[in-house]
């Protein structure tokens, strides 16, 4: 597993993928951060709208990390090396997952710089930034990112076409994200409950207010686990033909 993890990380930086991801992510997130806080019409330290935008942002960014994951291995037939090596399929999936997650965490790590000017410029009285809220938002974003990466890796195992993997992943993520927006228009109670249950955005709320919601934590971790498991199944099924 560690060998695959190491290889993936170095390949992120050897091909342009890692740089493209970091560059896009930092530029766009930096822009929205400024526009929503220190450079807003009324400068504020309220970061909740920034984090709402961030969730949308990672819908298009996370798939950049995962689209190559298995689809490229399959296209170049290098998956034959991985699948005939004494490594279990599951540890292969985990290695890929952790490497993409690491890239995501590097990105989030760099964004912490943003909060320095926030604390420095608007730290006065009632308008000072809320530390708990910030932590809650960060944690929520990491959890959502984990789900997205797991889904992306699962999709990349389904196709050998990288652009297809990217587009399908974005489509699935958007669907999961926006699902509760339809809720207001649906009259049937049980459909609303199901949609609500599936909604990733719906669970984001508590965290953004700085509340630690254990059920949401379990929900996100479960989604991650389910998709990584499904990804492993994809390989088992393909072996059987």
């Amino acid at each position, binding site marked *: 597993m*560690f*060998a*695959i993890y*190491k*290889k993936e990380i*170095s*390949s992120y930086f*050897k*091909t342009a993928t890692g740089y493209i991801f970091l560059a896009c992510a930092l530029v766009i997130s930096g822009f929205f951060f400024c526009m929503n806080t220190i450079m807003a019409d009324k400068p504020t330290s309220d970061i909740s709208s920034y984090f709402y935008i961030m969730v949308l942002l990672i819908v298009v960014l996370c798939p950049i990390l995962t689209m190559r994951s298995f689809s490229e291995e399959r296209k*170049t*037939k*290098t*998956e*034959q*090396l*991985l*699948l*005939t*090596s*004494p*490594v*279990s399929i599951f540890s292969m999936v985990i290695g890929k997952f952790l490497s993409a997650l690491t890239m995501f965490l590097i990105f989030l790590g760099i964004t912490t710089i943003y909060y320095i000017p926030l604390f420095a410029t608007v730290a006065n009285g009632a308008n000072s930034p809320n530390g708990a809220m910030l932590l809650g938002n960060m944690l929520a974003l990491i959890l959502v990112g984990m789900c997205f990466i797991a889904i992306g890796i699962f999709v990349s195992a389904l196709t050998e076409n990288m652009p297809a993997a990217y587009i399908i992943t974005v489509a699935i993520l958007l669907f999961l994200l926006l699902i509760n927006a339809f809720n207001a228009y649906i009259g049937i109670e049980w459909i609303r409950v199901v949609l609500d249950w599936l909604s990733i955005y719906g669970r984001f709320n508590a965290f953004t207010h700085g509340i630690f919601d254990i059920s949401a934590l379990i929900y996100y971790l479960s989604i991650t686990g389910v998709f990584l498991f499904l990804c492993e199944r994809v390989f088992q099924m393909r*072996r*059987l*033909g």
Partner: protein
Amino acid sequence: MVEIKNLVRRFGNKYAVDDISFEIQRGEIVGFLGPNGAGKSTTMNMITGYISPTSGAVTIDGKDIFDEPTEAKKKIGFLPEQPPLYMDMTVWEYLSFVFDLKGCDFNKKEHLNEVCELVKVNDVRDRLIKNLSKGYKQRVGIAGAIIGNPPVMIFDEPTVGLDPKQIIEIRNLIRGLGKKHTVILSSHILSEVQAICDRIIIINEGKIIADQKTTKLNAVLGQGNRFKVKVAGPYKEVQNLISKIHGVNKVTTDGVRDGDAYTFIVDHSASVDVRKMIFRSLAERAWPILALEGVEATLEELFVKFIDGKGGLE
């Protein structure tokens, strides 16, 4: 060392591999021979655990590839039809990754040096794999397969697409590996497996049609009763003359003229050596023989022999 029992693999309703069984002893070099699409790669992919069989079992040194995949895969080095190389890595990075992937527990640098030395990739070890020639890529693929010194090595068409010099080098390399390891290789070239392997398994349409020691197979092929003769003389008359000689069954020619000479392919019955007679009759007419060479049986003819049951199928 390698035991295969009643292996079947179906794709849709086509049987790619249809109930094959054999056993390979330690230290044997075995050649899988068959035309494209015969099921060679499918069989190899099943032995290495890349795909699962529809039914049947594969055991590597006592470990079942499906029940104990990790243990069994540790004993195999595999070079697939298309070497699984990461184009954006250097040779050294790639081999080092394979080393880690296989979880080898000996000195990495020493071992990789040994392997590089053995497959002769030392001079390109710091180059990106995508910039290497096909021959070097193939060698890097072989290097990947032999990392960790697995007791069983499986090479799927290792010489396809290489130039003659590279083919000879790779063959020698494989023959060298065969001294210490069990080697299985596949090929659709008869002379290649004859040159490298101790034992040849011929498959066609997913079934084994022959499984014999190379020496024995050579004897079967030795009954080849065909040679090529190039004679300077009038085309029709020469053909007539040769075909009248006792023991000659058939004389064919492609009719291509080379100076004043034509090449004839002579089929004769096994009991008579007609070459002397041909020489004498042609000498009488003062039509000189410019060349005479045996024609080796082709894979297709070999098939015909075995399928007709004349090959002493065991």
